[in-house]
């Protein structure tokens, strides 16, 4: 990066739309949602419309330069040039939520004292207008002595004007100092707010009451009884939808894969090529691809909830409950994200101020059932659990899935509770959670997010899962059995040897060697277990694989296999992110050991109990 590069930084309160503006200005596609702390790491993009090379830094939100939680400190350190290997910004783009001017301007006045060139973006201008908030932009700009632009980042409105202001700002002389000292607090908070009142007086008018529907919604969401019912209904609905609504599409994809497989078997001459394409590539990838609809539905719910503003309220409602096990409402969003994938969930723990609570949250995050486990659960449940309707409303398969999720959550609670007892708490960190305004999920961001999640899944099928399927097919096909062989060919293959080699370790759990083979590639991605089983049993398609499993595994073993997947840290990327976030080999080792131990004991207990029961 050359020294002539101009650096702009986006600064503002949490959840005022900095990242959405960042996306608009740089054409990036960083994640946006309606809660504080979505951005935990600074993010850099290029501004291409200027005369000289320029970059834009998106900083995590902060309320203040003076009092800061760990994720807020990132913003302060970057601004002051205290970050190593990081040149401080030359100019600031302060972002303020127009519906929440006072809080935003307080930070703006602190920033102004740094003496850097500044532009002010009054974001969410549309919401402010709908609420009847009127702002005299020119007058505010004169009083603040900086350019002020109204923007609606998610709709690109005002972004052109902001770009024009940035073009103006690029000709400001660049400062020489590499660091800035944070000026002493010049005035009491009371005096600062009094100054803001004077600033706003006569140039901003705010109606007395926020919109009625927001009030009504909060009265319901935070009602002691209705709120609880609402929360439980939303969570249960997600599990029902994942199973019930997805099945027509799942069947359609499964049918197509079957059809393709049969067609290719007829078209291609029998032999090694036909076997490779049909039983290696198609069976491997097809058996994972069928789970796409379920993953899309799960993410649809998560994205809509993230954008609506409900999540911080759920965190608020559950704070008391989570404190019972040594966590707090602040752990809720990282843990909920872990239902999609533990990797972003663990990264989101940076917004937790208390280091012990953060460590505990990281340790239990993988116990939240991630979307990669869904294919494995779905396969085994569909094969072994009958489709009975229970209580006239729920089907037994959906309930079993729900039970697996609950098992993960309860185990997490227990582990958190035990860990909290070891680390006696001196918890002085206040909860202080901002509850943002509700809003309709933005269709563009919703569809974009959904497309990205679906695409990531499809790309994994086309790369990791394809590659592993090919490797597995090779291991399962060679060497060929001797001419006079009596057992199935796979018994003589490398896969057979490997499975039989590790099987004794898993024998107490009832796992056969085929199940053991399937556990190995699951370290790269849990869903590969499904395609591995398809390859090892040489069947393609979900229905066909299911019925094969139903014939070859006793029920207690199938249940033990599910129990194993509830706990086992079978995902290298999660282990890598734990290492990165804790920066401790000891903690990472403890993380791996405790989860494998739980997996083994959990499967052992499930197997024994299921045998005793039947």
């Amino acid at each position, binding site marked *: 990066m050359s020294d002539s590069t101009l650096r702009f930084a986006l600064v503002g309160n949490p959840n005022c739309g900095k990242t959405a503006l960042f996306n608009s200005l740089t054409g990036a596609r960083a994640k946006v949602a309606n809660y504080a702390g979505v951005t935990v790491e600074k993010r850099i993009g290029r501004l291409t419309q200027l005369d000289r090379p320029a970059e834009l830094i998106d900083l995590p939100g902060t*309320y*203040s330069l*003076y*009092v800061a939680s760990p994720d807020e400190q990132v913003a302060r350190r970057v601004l002051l040039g205290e970050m190593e290997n990081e040149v401080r910004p030359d100019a600031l783009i302060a972002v303020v939520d127009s*519906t*929440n001017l*006072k*809080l935003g301007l*307080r930070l703006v006045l602190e920033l102004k004292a740094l003496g850097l060139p500044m532009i002010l973006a009054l974001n969410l201008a549309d919401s402010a207008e709908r609420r009847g908030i009127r702002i005299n932009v020119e007058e505010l700009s004169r009083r603040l002595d900086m350019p002020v632009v109204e923007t609606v980042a998610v709709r690109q409105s005002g972004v052109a004007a902001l770009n024009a202001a940035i073009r103006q700002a690029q000709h400001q002389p660049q400062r020489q100092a590499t660091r800035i000292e944070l000026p002493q607090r010049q005035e009491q*908070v*009371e005096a600062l*707010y009094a100054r803001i009142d004077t600033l706003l007086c006569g140039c901003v008018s*705010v109606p007395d009451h*926020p919109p009625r529907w927001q009030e009504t919604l*909060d*009265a319901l*969401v*935070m*009602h*002691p009884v209705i*709120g*609880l019912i609402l*929360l439980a209904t939303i969570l249960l609905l997600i599990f029902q939808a994942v199973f019930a609504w997805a099945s027509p599409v799942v069947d359609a994809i499964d049918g197509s894969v079957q059809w393709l497989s049969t067609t290719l078997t007829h078209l291609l001459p029998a032999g090694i090529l036909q076997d490779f394409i049909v039983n290696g590539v198609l069976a491997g990838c097809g058996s994972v691809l069928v789970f796409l609809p379920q993953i899309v539905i799960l993410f649809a719910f998560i994205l809509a909830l993230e954008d609506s503003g409900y999540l*911080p309220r759920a*965190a*608020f*409602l*559950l*704070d*008391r*409950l989570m404190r019972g096990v040594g966590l707090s*409402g602040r752990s809720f969003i990282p843990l909920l994200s872990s239902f999609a994938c533990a990797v972003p969930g663990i990264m989101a723990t940076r917004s937790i101020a208390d280091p012990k609570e953060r460590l505990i949250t990281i340790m239990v995050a993988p116990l939240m059932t991630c979307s990669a486990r869904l294919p494995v659960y779905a396969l085994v449940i569909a094969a072994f659990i009958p489709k009975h309707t229970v209580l006239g409303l729920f089907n037994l398969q959906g309930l079993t899935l729900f039970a697996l999720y609950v098992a993960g959550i309860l185990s997490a609670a227990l582990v958190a509770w035990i860990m909290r007892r070891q680390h006696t708490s001196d918890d*002085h960190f*206040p*909860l*202080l*959670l*901002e*509850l*943002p305004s509700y809003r309709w999920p933005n269709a563009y961001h919703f569809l974009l997010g959904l497309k990205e999640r679906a695409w990531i899944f499809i790309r994994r099928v086309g790369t990791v899962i394809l590659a592993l399927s090919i490797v597995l097919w090779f291991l399962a096909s060679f060497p060929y059995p001797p001419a006079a062989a009596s057992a199935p060919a796979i018994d003589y293959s490398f896969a057979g040897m490997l499975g039989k080699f590790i099987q004794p370790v898993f024998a107490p759990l009832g796992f056969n060697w085929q199940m053991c083979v399937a556990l190995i590639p699951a370290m790269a991605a849990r869903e590969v277990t499904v395609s591995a089983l398809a390859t090892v049993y040489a069947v393609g398609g979900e229905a066909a694989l299911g019925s094969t499993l139903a014939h070859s595994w006793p029920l207690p073993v199938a249940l033990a296999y599910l129990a194993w997947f509830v706990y086992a840290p079978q995902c290298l990327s999660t282990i890598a992110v734990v290492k990165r976030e804790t920066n401790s080999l000891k903690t990472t080792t403890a993380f791996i050991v405790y989860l494998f131990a739980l997996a083994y004991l959990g499967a052992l207990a499930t197997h024994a109990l299921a045998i005793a029961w039947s």
Partner: protein
Amino acid sequence: MSHLCDSKNTDTGLAPLHLLPRGARARIVEIAAQREFGAEDHQVTQRLKELGFLAGAQIKVIGFGLFGKDPIAVQINGTKFGLRRREAEKIMTQLLPV
């Protein structure tokens, strides 16, 4: 819980935020010290003030977390915050008529 506020009302009209019932409106009188925060009490006071919890500001109780009256959700200057009981205890208020 509400009778507690009522009795306080008749004396001085003052009550800490955590004793106010759902839907109550009040004016903040001061941010008091809270021994439970120990050495960090000053920081917590500062943060509350920065978020707008200042003497004279109007505050409304919107609701409580599940299973009890802690945490507590309040609205101030058009922004909503969730606070723990310990923080709420620091905020001395004067109840306003409905």
